[in-house]
């Protein structure tokens, strides 16, 4: 494997007070691939993601971005590098339309006024780049969109800014079957465009449908990072529930 990982973490330690949440965690994500991050509740997935996104500072460990060692002290620094996190609650303003949400806080301006024309055109091209056959009108309010459409808007916002790593926290948690498929298709499309995508999910069907690699966590440890094609459904479930499966995972 000669490809440099977009994101490469080694020996990450993190504790809150006396509770160790992450213990010697290694994690990498490659451009053009979807890496599924799986683990039971409390395994440390969210903490790891928050460390990657600069929301938490880790206590020890090495953080490499595109091969360079970096220090990320705040969410802003992560964003500047091109790391975007789509949180589970999406953080969209329901009273604003799709274009307005996509550009929220980073509006295009022409002199004193907003450049609505440029923003609408860019929003349209980003959404069609995600193979969303445009959602009706990009001038619809978020309040009128379905859950899957909202998720797509949140993802589109993450990729609008030339980002390199996109982390999705349970994008399909609250969605129906058809909408989940829609979002998974978008996730796949992101990786095909060359981004490194990290997908947190509890749903094994989704993980196997869309991911190239699986990183399984168990009680604050990274127990295995494998290619999706090398493992079975049952093995991954075992890794999540007991931290080991045959050759894989923690030594007993």
């Amino acid at each position, binding site marked *: 494997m000669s490809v440099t990982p977009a994101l490469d973490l080694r020996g990450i330690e993190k504790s809150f007070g006396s509770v160790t949440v992450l213990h010697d965690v290694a994690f990498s994500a490659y451009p053009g691939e*979807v890496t599924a991050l799986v683990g039971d509740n409390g395994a440390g997935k969210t903490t790891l993601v928050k460390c990657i996104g600069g929301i938490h500072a880790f206590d020890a460990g090495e953080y490499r971005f595109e091969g360079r060692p970096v220090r990320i002290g705040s*969410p*802003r620094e992560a964003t500047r590098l091109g790391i975007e996190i789509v*949180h589970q609650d*999406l*953080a*969209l*303003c*329901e*009273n*604003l339309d799709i274009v*307005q949400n996509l550009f*929220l*806080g*980073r*509006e295009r*301006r022409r002199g*004193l*006024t*907003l450049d609505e*024309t440029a923003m*609408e*055109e860019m929003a349209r091209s980003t959404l069609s780049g995600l193979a*969303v*056959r*445009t*959602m*009706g*009108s*990009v*001038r619809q309010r978020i*309040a*009128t*969109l*379905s*859950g*899957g*459409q909202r998720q797509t808007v949140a993802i589109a916002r993450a990729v609008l800014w030339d980002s390199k790593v996109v982390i999705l926290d349970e994008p399909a948690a609250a969605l129906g*079957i*058809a*909408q989940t*498929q*829609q979002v*998974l*298709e978008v996730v*796949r499309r992101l*990786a095909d465009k060359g981004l490194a995508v990290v997908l947190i999910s509890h749903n094994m069907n989704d993980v196997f*449908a*869309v*991911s*190239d690699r699986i990183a399984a966590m168990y009680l604050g440890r990274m127990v295995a990072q494998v*290619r*999706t*094609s090398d493992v079975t459904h049952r093995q991954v479930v075992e890794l999540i529930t007991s931290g080991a499966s045959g050759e894989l995972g923690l030594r007993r």
Partner: protein
Amino acid sequence: MSTDIPEGKETALKLADSDFATDRREHDVKSAVLDYWNRLKAGELGALPALIGLASLFVLFTFLKPDTFLSTGNIANLSTQALPITILAMGLVFVLLVGEIDLSAGVASGLCAALMAKLLVEGGQPWYVAVISAIAAGIIIGTAIGWLVAILRIPSFVVSLAFFLGLQGITLWLIGEGGTVPVRDEVIVALATRNMPIWLGWTLAVACAVGYTATQLLRWQRQHARHLHSKPIELVLIQCGVVAAVLLGATYVLSLDRAASPLIELAGIPWGVPLVGTLLIVCTFILGRTSFGRHIYAVGGNAEAARRAGINVVRIRISVFMIGSGLAAISGILAASRLNSVAVSAGAGNTLLYAVGAAVIGGTSLFGGRGKARDAVFGGLVIATIENGLGLLGTKAYLSFLITGVVLLLAASMDALARRRRSNVGR
């Protein structure tokens, strides 16, 4: 391995695609009207209740008082009556948009007017010094409220209630118990009691109508040329036609001689009307066309999302209170101009409730995130019409209070119901 969506799931994908309706870039009139109807059904009422309310009030009062209500004199009176409420409401729209409330806006307007009157009468200052000081005082009051709300996170309801009491105290101290300060400065008095020359009124009205039509058409043309989302041209033209008709019609009525005696001539648009017009244009521009305005809506819609998007939520919160109290000061000046004096009770009593009512009747939501500057104008006209009509009918004071209270309650319940409807419709 192949990481495409596995075989056998194509049906699901198709289903998902149909979820994203095909894009209709060109709306024709039929689909635009249908869209509007669907939005209405979904609880996006906009200015419709205010317009229906205004129309029915006009019919009602014309029916009850056929000779006086629609007389040119009363129409002119109505227009100046609406001025202070409208400006106060316009400031409150900003505050309501971020989901806060400023209960002290009314008494702040009274205090600023008292300060202006004091500077004019006892300070001997020219009118512009007095006016600028009054507006500055308003902005300072707003900054203080905004700071307490945004930094200390005290609920704005409590902060502004405290200011409601405290500011009345300052006004009382400034003017002295039971007193009034007369306002005789020519320029100030002219705002609400003198009229523009008729030629100037017509020029401004025509300029506004042409300007509005030109902006709308230019925008339509730009959107259309680039295949962006645009309204059908027919609707744009109708909209421009209605605005032009209202502008010119009002100018015509106000340009008729309304003097009671044939010996003098009294005609023209009161000077305060173009002032409100200017404020309306400026506020609409700020809210609709600048990133500051966009951020106000964002904070009102979802403050956490706005914060994560890098918007300085604290700054937005403070600035809306500054705008609210600054406009309250201007409203106080107009009220003083109309009455030729400032009393201790200026801005107290039901002033604030009328203004909040105006904003809400106009379509601004009490829950934040929804509203426009024009809401203040429509709502202000409704409230002023009620006040004016009841006055003509010689309604007893207790009835006026009751009726206005019921109207406010109606507006607020409509807002709450529309909101519930919206959250039900959200799929």
